[in-house]
């Protein structure tokens, strides 16, 4: 690894981690897009700084960017105070006006003898990671220390001010001051990020890691760590892929594909977000779908056993066979669903399958009885105690039979106990209502 690559790697990962952590609070405070405004507003600030000092001076650029960012935020606050305009509208207007101003100034600078390209101003649009210097690393390192220190020191204050600002004010916390500290740090990390990922993409570096982290945990302290980790991870992945460590799938062999670092970092962050959204335990899409499918499968299994039982109830205690195809039609299932369920029930030893005929086995009968009992008791309860019409109770009971905990079934049984309802098999299953 070359010295430059190491420098870029360290700087971007520190930047990503800091932006990720600060982004958590920016999102929770309901100000996720402040970073976006600050970043876009920085462009005219940088251009004006260049027009004044007439040379590529990083500290002048940062100062200009910071002043323009603060001006934009102040302007937003002013418009909100004076006019009854929606917050997001104000945000959109201010952001694009400042950005438009920046692009205009950029083309003015191109025409100057000093030239915009030589000054490297266009790099601020999408970032230029290769130009990162040792000074940049030191700045980012210092900022990450300050930001981490502030989060540790002010954790309690940040939490109460973001969760319930009204309550915080009653307790006497200067919520405005806490906000100021938080958004000063957001502004600083945004300014330093401009050189790496650029004006247009900086907001994503603040928002994506914390949005992804939210899928993994319900605790803020853990969310901060995860978001910091995701930010650093995205930076490392993005830097690595742009440095050509990823094998090129097209073009001539041995050729290294050079991709821009900033956008690659953002795309890596997006991949982490997508991965979190899909695969996070409990809140991820896959985990939710799996839970739903399990529930459906269990319900269908109960329906199958009940169907087999009810069709052969009159033949008890003999366990009669019936055509698998007919059962399937009555349940209205597809063949593949039927196959999955009968196979599962057969593996468990609940049913036997012979020549397309299905029959309950004793252990299956036992399970079926539990389901039927819950179903019929619930029907009776709805009919007698809840006063629901008899033609409605079946469908309701269909849904409830899988969910009724055993102790409730026992309670229902006591409440609804009438001797002649018990069937001849003595299993305390009431007679069917149909």
């Amino acid at each position, binding site marked *: 690894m070359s010295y430059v690559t190491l420098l870029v790697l360290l700087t971007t990962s520190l930047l990503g981690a800091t932006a990720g952590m600060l982004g958590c609070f920016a999102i*929770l405070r309901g100000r996720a897009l402040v970073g976006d405004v600050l970043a876009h507003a920085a462009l005219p600030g940088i251009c004006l700084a260049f027009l004044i000092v007439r040379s590529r001076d990083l500290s002048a650029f940062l100062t200009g960017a910071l002043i323009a960012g603060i001006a934009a935020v102040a302007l937003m606050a002013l418009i909100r105070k004076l006019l009854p305009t929606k917050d997001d509208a104000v945000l959109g207007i201010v952001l694009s006006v400042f950005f438009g101003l920046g692009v205009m100034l950029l083309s003015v600078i191109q025409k100057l003898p000093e030239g915009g390209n030589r000054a490297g101003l266009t790099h601020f649009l999408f970032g230029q990671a290769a130009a990162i210097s040792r000074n940049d690393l030191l700045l980012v390192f210092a900022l990450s220390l300050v930001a981490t220190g502030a989060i540790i020191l002010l954790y*309690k204050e940040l939490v109460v001010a973001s969760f319930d600002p009204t309550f*915080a004010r009653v307790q006497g916390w200067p919520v405005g001051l806490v906000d100021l500290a938080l958004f000063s740090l957001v502004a600083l990390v945004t300014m330093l990020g401009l050189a790496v990922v650029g004006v247009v993409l900086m907001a994503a570096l603040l928002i994506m890691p914390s949005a992804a982290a939210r899928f993994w945990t319900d605790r803020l302290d853990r969310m901060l760590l995860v978001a910091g980790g995701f930010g650093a991870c995205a930076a490392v992945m993005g830097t690595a892929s742009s440095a050509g460590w990823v094998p090129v799938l097209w073009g001539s062999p041995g050729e290294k594909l050079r991709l821009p670092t900033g956008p690659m970092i953002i795309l890596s962050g997006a991949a982490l977000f997508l991965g979190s959204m899909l695969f996070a335990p409990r809140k991820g899409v896959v985990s939710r779908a799996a839970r739903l499918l399990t529930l459906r499968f269990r319900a269908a299994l109960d329906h199958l056993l009940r169907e087999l039982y009810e069709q052969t109830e009159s033949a008890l205690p003999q366990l009669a066979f019936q055509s698998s195809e007919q059962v399937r039609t009555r349940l209205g299932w597809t063949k593949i669903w039927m196959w999955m369920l009968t196979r599962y029930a057969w593996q468990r030893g609940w049913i036997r399958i012979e020549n397309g005929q299905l029959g309950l086995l004793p252990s299956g009968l036992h399970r079926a009885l539990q389901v039927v009992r819950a179903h019929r008791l619930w029907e009776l309860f709805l009919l007698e105690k809840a006063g629901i019409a008899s033609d409605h109770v079946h469908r309701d009971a269909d849904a409830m039979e899988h969910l009724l905990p055993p102790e409730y079934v026992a309670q229902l049984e006591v409440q609804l106990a009438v001797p002649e309802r018990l069937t001849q098999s003595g299993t305390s299953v009431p007679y069917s209502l149909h």
Partner: protein
Amino acid sequence: MSETIALEIHDLTVVYHRKPVLWDIDLRVPEGRLVGIIGPNGAGKSTLIKAALGLVPVVSGQVWFYGSPLRECRHLVGYVPQRETIDWDFPVTVMDVVLMGTYGRLGWFRRPGRAERELAQKCLKLVEMEEFADRQIRQLSGGQQQRVFLARALAQQASIYFLDEPFVGVDAATERAIVSLLQTLRDERKTVLVVHHDLQTVREYFDFAILLNMRLIAAGETSQVFTNENLRKAYGGRLTLLAEVAEAVHRSAVP
């Protein structure tokens, strides 16, 4: 022996967007009372609380808690905001929320320690939520969320409590539990002010009532305040003139 005055409001006027919502409120609430703040929608009930707590700018008026202005006695004040002002998806647990009640006493930088956790646990027990301490707050029902908010206010260990519509979206069992808890607080000489809009339960819940409709109609013992005459003043048509004036001022002030 004269009664201690827990809350005194003098000449309070509040204006929202150049439209008056509270006019010249003068009132004194003695210590150890359970107070209902009652009035029709838009009467400025919540605004009265918020103005007293310095949460909304006031045009005029002074507020004293036990004879001192708010900035000198914040530790005496407990607050339960309206439930829907909160993002319940926020990544904190029930315990975290209740601990926030102790933040005011802790001051800058200090984190809640063992003593604060024990206090929070005790407050959760008082609202019968101790087994929910580790739950994320989104997983609670409306009534449970309100109990957590109440536990947080209890953890403030205040002398005077303000509750903004604590019974909205809350089940009957929780409402009864909250009321009996508030009555216990009153019996411990705490003063509790509740923004309330169910006229049916006023006599049953509160021994002191503040009847509002943009101005103060009456304040005092519930039995004396809660008369047909006063209710007609607060809810009847006579105050429409005041509302019309307010509307007219609003229209002329905003071009």
